[in-house]
């Protein structure tokens, strides 16, 4: 009966073996890239198209609601979007509710060389960190200056050229929310519902599912989902980056997950076929 015992074993492989295989499987493509083609999904395309409609002088609020852990997922699409925003001649406001905000801002500047051609205070501004979840987002919409009397470097907003006429959500053309959690919801509820500000989402993959109804309902103008969305944005602007490389690891890991699921099901079905349960 050794055959059956193997089938039974397939159903209960020690988790640690699975973990080792996974970690090694994820690492290999970084050493030997595969490079499979990527198709662009409609929600990413909508995001790209809307950003392309930005006019010079439009103000975009970029909310980076993820920690350093979220960089592989959210940063590629954020960087690509920022490139589009700056190239369209629009102005950018950077805010973040995460304590890692300085690292995020530094990383974004590294990834977007266009900042070098733009002028701080005139084309973009780094307001920095804010606390207080949805309540803070509501306040930000009502009056930016109550949340950020100054930018992250301590300069009062009234002394910053591009902020002179920006007081509330009404003065902002659109919001891009990069997040790992509910921040997009906050902006939908507090900005889109109250002021009609268009909201776009750059989220981790799992938010793709929760925000899909919002995208379908037209509440979100576009959505980039996870590192896949990042890879798609990189493709749309024609500049492959880190997300494109990560897609190989994703491929391997997905195949491993499917292999594990198949093994477990073969084990279960065969055991059941032989009268087991």
């Amino acid at each position, binding site marked *: 009966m050794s055959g059956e015992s193997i089938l039974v074993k397939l159903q209960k492989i020690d988790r*640690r073996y699975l973990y080792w295989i996974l970690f090694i499987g994820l*690492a290999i493509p970084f050493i030997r890239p595969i490079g499979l083609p990527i198709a662009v999904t409609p929600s990413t395309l909508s995001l790209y198209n809307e950003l392309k409609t930005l006019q010079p002088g439009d103000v975009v609020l970029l909310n980076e609601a993820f920690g350093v852990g979220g960089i*592989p997922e959210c940063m590629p699409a954020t960087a690509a979007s920022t490139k589009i925003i700056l190239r369209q001649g629009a102005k950018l406001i950077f805010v973040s509710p995460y*304590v890692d905000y300085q690292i995020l801002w530094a*990383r974004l500047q590294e990834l977007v060389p266009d900042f070098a051609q733009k002028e701080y205070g005139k084309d973009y501004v780094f307001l920095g960190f804010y606390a207080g979840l949805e309540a803070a987002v509501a306040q930000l919409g009502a009056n930016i200056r109550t949340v950020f009397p100054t930018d992250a470097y301590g300069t009062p907003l009234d002394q910053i050229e591009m902020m002179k006429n920006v007081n509330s959500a009404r003065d902002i053309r659109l919001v891009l929310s990069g997040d790992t959690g509910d921040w997009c919801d906050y902006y939908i509820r507090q900005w889109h519902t109250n002021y009609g500000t268009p909201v776009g989402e750059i989220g981790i993959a799992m938010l793709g599912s929760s925000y899909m109804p919002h995208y379908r*309902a037209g509440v979100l103008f576009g959505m980039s989902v*996870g590192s896949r969305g990042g890879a798609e944005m990189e493709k749309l602007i024609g500049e492959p980056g880190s997300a494109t490389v990560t897609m190989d690891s*994703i491929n391997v890991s997905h195949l491993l*997950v499917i292999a594990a699921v198949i093994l477990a099901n073969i084990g279960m079905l065969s055991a059941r076929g032989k009268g087991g349960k």
Partner: protein
Amino acid sequence: MAYPTDLFGLSGLWFQWLLLLMVYSYVLYKETPAYRFAEHLYIGITMAISLMVAIGNVTRIAIRPLMAGEVIYVIPLILGFAMYALLISEYRWVSRYPIAILVGAGFGLGMRGVLIPNLLSQVISTIRPPTGNAPIDWFTFVYVAIGTICAITYFLLTYEHTGALSYPTRIGRWIIMIGLGVYFANTVLFRMSMLAGRAQFFLQVLKIIPM
């Protein structure tokens, strides 16, 4: 990000690498003293960092405006410190007041916040006729509407799922299962890119791949 060359950067980088090993020892092997070290280190420093962030926030949001003459900010400061009444057994109840504010704000914002996006907008997008006229568009329209109806009946709490209700609730269960499966699988993507990011970092520190 370039590979650091100074002691400050190098020590940090290798310490990060070691911590990665310590934490993953829990996953790949078992709970070890190394994991315990990383765990306690992390809890200790994060507590201090959270406290620093909180001090910065309170100063920025309340103390500075107060200094500038906005007396109203005395109220939240008093309420905030009323939380500490919890430490004195006779006056423990005083801490209920700041909590009443928080709970009130949470319920108030929450209840008013779900009405449009979670209820009305969802109904509207369920019943909005498809823009296209292809069979798949109509199939989707019917699937979403009927699916939503059945899934909602699954949540009826004062009726047993028997008799006439047994059919829609069973379909509702299937619809929910499909939703959960899609959600689960979609999340795999996200989790894996995070972990791939760590695997990449692991190799970068060892200089197997460039940083």
